[in-house]
């Protein structure tokens, strides 16, 4: 992205519109917006909705690139609308559409449920055989900073779906799970606190799993959080092949440090609130 002229100017917004109740197929609609320097695509859409067309629909929440709700196709590239300044993208025309490779619910709102179902199927949480981390949340784990770095970048994923929209394999392969769920399988597999590799390996190594990835790398190029899903998928390929050939290191999940028996409540500090869930 190169910085353009910083003065305010009129920008033509060409927006893909689709209402499944009234339209047979998506169509484009044009709007002209007076764009000030620093104005984001999301703000441009708000201006259109407030002043020109109240029927325009899109999804948004945090406005600061954290929630991952406002992923859309802007000038042919998947990105977060809240994170992209209009004058950094264009001087004249801005095309906006819903994220490709998803069913369109309405206008700029894609149906993210297939992606999220695959994500949930991979148990995106710490899986332990010895105890349930959800029921003993106060225990600390023995994990070194180096072990943390192995999965840290993958944990920055905000599930916006931009990687799924950019993936060429997603566009063709009906079974492919896509970069987001697969990268998240690796995020937990690479976590030394976790013991759920076998369960996730069945998904990642099954139909539509990691071997379908052609390593085009577009998922990593478009990720607004700098996550590298393509790398996660290649690492998981290596892990799966090594596991199948019996070459993988067998490692138990790291241990935990229980509550300190010598710890005493400090005077003047209010007691912690009671647990909101039943503990075993």
């Amino acid at each position, binding site marked *: 992205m190169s910085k353009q002229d910083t003065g305010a100017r009129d920008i033509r917004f060409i927006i893909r519109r689709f209402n499944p109740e009234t339209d047979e197929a998506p169509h484009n609609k044009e709007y002209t917006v007076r764009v000030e320097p620093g104005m984001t695509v999301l703000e441009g859409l708000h201006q259109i909705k407030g002043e020109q067309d109240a029927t325009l629909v899109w999804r948004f929440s945090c406005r600061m690139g954290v929630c991952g709700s406002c992923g859309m196709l802007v000038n042919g590239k998947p990105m977060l609308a809240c994170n992209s300044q209009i004058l950094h993208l264009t001087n004249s025309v801005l095309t906006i559409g819903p994220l490709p490779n998803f069913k369109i619910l309405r206008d700029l709102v894609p149906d993210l449920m297939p992606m999220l179902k695959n994500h949930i199927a991979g148990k995106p949480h710490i899986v332990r055989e010895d105890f349930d981390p959800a029921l003993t949340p106060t225990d600390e784990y023995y994990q070194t900073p180096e072990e943390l770095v192995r999965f840290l970048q993958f944990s920055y994923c905000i599930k916006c779906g931009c990687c799924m929209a950019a993936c060429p*394999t997603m566009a*063709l*392969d*009906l*079974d492919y799970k896509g970069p987001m769920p697969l990268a998240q399988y690796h995020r937990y597999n690479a976590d030394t606190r976790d013991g759920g590799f076998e369960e996730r*390996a*069945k998904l*990642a*190594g*099954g*139909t539509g*799993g990691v*071997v*379908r990835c052609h390593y085009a790398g577009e998922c990593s190029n478009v990720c607004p959080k700098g996550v590298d899903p393509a790398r996660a998928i290649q690492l998981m*390929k290596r892990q*799966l*092949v090594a*596991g*199948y*050939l019996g070459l993988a290191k067998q490692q138990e999940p790291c241990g935990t440090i229980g509550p300190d028996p010598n710890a005493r409540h400090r005077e003047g500090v209010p007691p912690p609130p009671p647990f909101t869930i039943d503990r075993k």
Partner: protein
Amino acid sequence: MRETRFWTWHLLAGIAILIFGGLHMIVMHLDGILGWFNPAGGSALDWANVVVRSQGFLFPVVYIILLGVTLFHGFYGLRNILLELGIGRCGRVTVNILLVGGGIVLFTIGAVAAIKAMGV
């Protein structure tokens, strides 16, 4: 895990092709320099050399292995390409059956030819 299994064998088949295909290329195309496995001298495709190689144990085995790994490697790659064309579940089953069936038929023909050549 099925795809992991297939993909691992796809990689191993690629390595086997490098080794056995490399041996084939050396014997066939470097015959003028090395003359390996060409006891009668001259070209590697001279009848006498072909007969000697076919009647031994090593070459029929090498060619049968090479045929098997090449068929698996090629057909698995073709299957991946076909499955990515957006065909439905029925089409995918058909592709799998055709490729597995075709592979078995071609392997049988090739293997029988190599074994029969031992008795020439």
